[in-house]
């Protein structure tokens, strides 16, 4: 037993408890200081993650490697940015701020365990720790009907999808006699499977994960939840919770199911196609920016699924890199939305008219984040998409890349629709939008991320390719 490997997780867990504890003794008007306190905890955890060693613990269950390290940094980064964007929002509109921050940290702990897990049951438990915290967070605006609806919807569908996933896992256990990923792989290599039972189990597992990723046709919950949840939580959901689903999915499929790729690759291709097409087309019709970003984040998952179907080392690298750049661009975009909402209390796209005159910095930041999401160089989104498509082309999936690039062109239209309002229309009000220090921090960090990874991606690519070499393809 090697407990030192999970020191970062233990530390973050204790820090969440510390937040709860301090919350007791803090006066109501000072509770917003719990936000910066959580940020401190995250920064310390990042340091611990980087400097804690690598290795395995608890038998085969837990593995601290470059793969879990990259994901942990992405999860902690999204939590950091999400908390930055929360501080004003929470002070103004949320009761029980202590629990709010503690729940974000707890769900991050779950995600970190998830990315490090190499065994199906511990993976499942970590996933539940993540999602149950998120159910509560989605419903956090108690008096707001939409938020309650979001929480309830998310919980019911989330529980149902977990059950489906669990059923798939049990079938896989039935076939192979083990829940350890390595063991499953060994069983599958040797025998003359794939029988119908394996296919059914794969379908259940894919369906379960697809719910978490909000891939079409398992996406129905996402727009409503994203719209209803407190906006910082939406930002966090759209990046970290998807990232968690992806971390587990790649670990399961590339870590144990590579011997039977022919059974699941076509399913992923179909999912990718549907997700890209539907996400991008429906986003065009949205007039609420949160809903638009919800559909856009569905579409973004489609691009990741393109690489997931490619099942190669390059594919893993590209997916993790894409998640990183997507984190910066998406949370950055949400930071602008939150700043605007805090000031004006609306999420309607038409209210953004003339924002470039009122707050040039916010407007240009949103343009940069959107262009990165479209994949315009030299921003990070382009490098991400380039690698994703490269992985798919390597395997000869020309038509899939064709769909991907054409839907990227479609996506330009709805992102630019917001830009059009901000730049080409005259403002109806003239007061500049106030941006607090914490939101400004989130914006600047995201901007640096989007530009740095775009202009000089080499260190990121080479670091992440170490994570990708965890699997044997």
């Amino acid at each position, binding site marked *: 037993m090697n407990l030192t490997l999970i020191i970062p997780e233990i530390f973050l867990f204790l820090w969440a408890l510390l937040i709860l504890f301090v919350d007791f003794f803090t006066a109501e008007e000072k509770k917003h200081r719990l936000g910066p306190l959580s940020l401190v905890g995250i920064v310390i955890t990042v340091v611990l993650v980087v400097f804690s060693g690598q290795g395995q613990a608890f038998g085969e269950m837990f593995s601290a490697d470059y793969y879990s390290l990259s994901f942990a940094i992405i999860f902690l980064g999204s939590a950091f940015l999400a908390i930055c964007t929360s501080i004003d929002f929470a002070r103004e509109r949320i009761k029980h701020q202590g629990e709010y921050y503690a729940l974000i940290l707890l769900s991050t702990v779950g995600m970190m365990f998830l990315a490090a897990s190499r065994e199906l049951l511990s993976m499942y438990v970590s996933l539940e720790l993540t999602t149950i915290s998120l159910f509560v967070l989605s419903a956090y605006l108690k008096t707001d009907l939409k938020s309650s609806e979001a929480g309830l919807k998310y919980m019911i569908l989330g529980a149902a999808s977990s059950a489906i996933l669990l059923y798939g896992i049990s079938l896989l256990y039935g076939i192979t006699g083990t829940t350890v990923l390595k063991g499953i792989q060994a069983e599958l290599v040797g025998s003359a499977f794939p029988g119908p039972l394996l296919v059914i189990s794969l379908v259940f597992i894919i369906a379960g994960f697809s719910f978490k990723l909000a891939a079409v046709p398992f996406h129905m919950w996402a727009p409503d939840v994203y719209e209803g949840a407190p906006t910082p939580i939406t930002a966090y959901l759209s990046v970290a919770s998807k990232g968690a689903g992806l971390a587990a999915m790649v670990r399961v499929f590339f870590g144990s199911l590579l011997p039977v790729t022919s059974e699941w690759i076509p399913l992923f291709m179909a999912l990718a196609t549907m997700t890209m097409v539907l996400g991008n087309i429906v986003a065009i019709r949205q007039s609420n920016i949160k809903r638009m970003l919800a559909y856009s984040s569905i579409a973004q998952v489609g691009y990741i699924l393109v690489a997931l179907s490619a099942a190669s080392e390059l594919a893993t690298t590209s997916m993790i890199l894409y998640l990183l750049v997507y984190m910066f661009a998406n949370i950055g975009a949400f930071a602008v939305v939150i700043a605007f909402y805090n000031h004006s209390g609306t999420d309607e796209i038409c209210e953004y008219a003339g924002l470039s005159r009122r707050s040039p910095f916010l407007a240009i930041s949103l343009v940069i984040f959107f262009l990165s999401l479209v994949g315009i160089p030299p921003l990070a989104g382009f490098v991400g998409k380039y690698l994703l498509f490269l992985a798919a082309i390597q395997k000869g999936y020309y038509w899939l890349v064709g769909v991907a690039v054409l839907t990227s062109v479609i996506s*330009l239209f709805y992102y630019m629709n917001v830009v059009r309002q901000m730049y*080409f229309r005259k403002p109806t009000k003239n007061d500049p939008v106030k941006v607090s220090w914490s939101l400004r921090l989130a914006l600047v960090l995201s901007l640096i991320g989007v530009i740095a990874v775009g202009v000089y991606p080499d260190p990121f690519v080479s670091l992440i390719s170490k994570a990708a070499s965890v699997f044997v393809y």
Partner: protein
Amino acid sequence: MDFPILTYMTFIPLLGMIVVMFTRKESVQLIRWESAFFSFIPLVLSIVMLAKYNGSVPDFQFIEQHEWIPSIGISYFMGADGISVPMLFLTALLSFVSIVASFNIQERVKEYFAFFLLLETGMMGVFCALDFFLFYVFWEVMLVPMYFLIGVWGGPRKEYAAIKFFLYTLFGSVFMLVGILVLYFAVEPHTLNMLTLIEYNSTYTHAFQIVLFPLFFIAFAIKVPMWPFHTWLPDAHVEAPTAVSVILAGILLKMGLYGLLRIGYPMFPEAAVYYAIPIGVIAVIGIVYGALVSMAQKDLKKLVAYSSVSHMGFCVLGLAALSVTGFAGCVFQMFSHGCLTGAMFLLVGILYDRAHTREIAAFGGLGVKLPLYTGIFTLFAMGSLGLPGLSGFVSEFMIFIGAFGSSFVPTWMVVLAVLGVVLTAGYILRMVQRIFLGPFNTKWEGLTEINGREIFTLVPLGILTILVGVYPKPLVDIISATLENLIRVMGM
């Protein structure tokens, strides 16, 4: 290590953008002069480059190569040869001219010049890049400032024109992106170095070339724009502010042709032969269609815009000829059209600033009131028409000789194309007649003559037009070795 002239030419405008962004919004005059300064340096550098370029060898010169993303085979690789050197000079010149011509922009001056300088960086980069990834980065970077320049400072239908331009060109570019991704895996070790990929062109199978060439062709054809991909052009041109139209017509349209000469043809020579006839047909349709549509225009700017479709058709015909003369005619036409149409759009803008209309029928007899303007306008109009002694004639003549002597282009195409010249003469002369000749329309009594700053923007273009028309040898010297080598690389 030599002085990295191409990097400086490319990134000094970007530096200028940053300086402009940190200037106070209210210091309008300062912003203007900063922009002029930061676009003047690349112009000086490009003249130095012209002087230092050795036209007797076909090799790339001023080469800079550094590792950029070695993990996926991408390098920062810049260089210039006989095709890019004239284009770089033209870009530097037109950017500077356009920035000076934009001094009368009153609204949101800071943002305008910031976007303009970013645009210049993108254009310069496209003509320097020799790594596919780098090329694509610059190719796309241009779209963003262009979108804003049309959308914020454009005419009444600017929003539509801006998004149409952006969507259309992005649609084309993604085809190229797929092509680039496929090419990456085409040679061992995987690379995006264009020169290496060209070197290996004989190893690409026939089928591979036939499939890949259209991917690049669509991207470039939309940019040129060739018929039937031209529909974004009239909207963008008409709605864009004057200086942006100059850049669009003067530089952006040439990028499609440049792309074909740099990438499409040398990388896929078999496909170039295979598709010679369809490309020739597209060229001829473009020439005749563009000319006929120009003839029907009531709006002066639209007329000039459609005339570009027609003139670009000549370039494409020169390409389809697959001979040194045809290619040379194409490069000449690129250069000459850049000067001529740039000047035409400036002149249209000058008139529009004063009269607030561009309707041809509204004018008449302006020659009496504005003799200097009329003289300058007529000079450039004659150049577009192809009058001997001006640059347009030289280039069209070379294209016809190239196409006529080529075994890839049937004679009837050349005949139709020559007919296009007659149509061109028709619409240009009619335009000149209806605006400047005839009885003076007294409504325009208050029009003022062209001012010093405006003449300053037109003079260099006029000198180049006459110079290339009367004494084309310097330009021939620059391009010929490169084009001969290109034909050799293509195995013709």
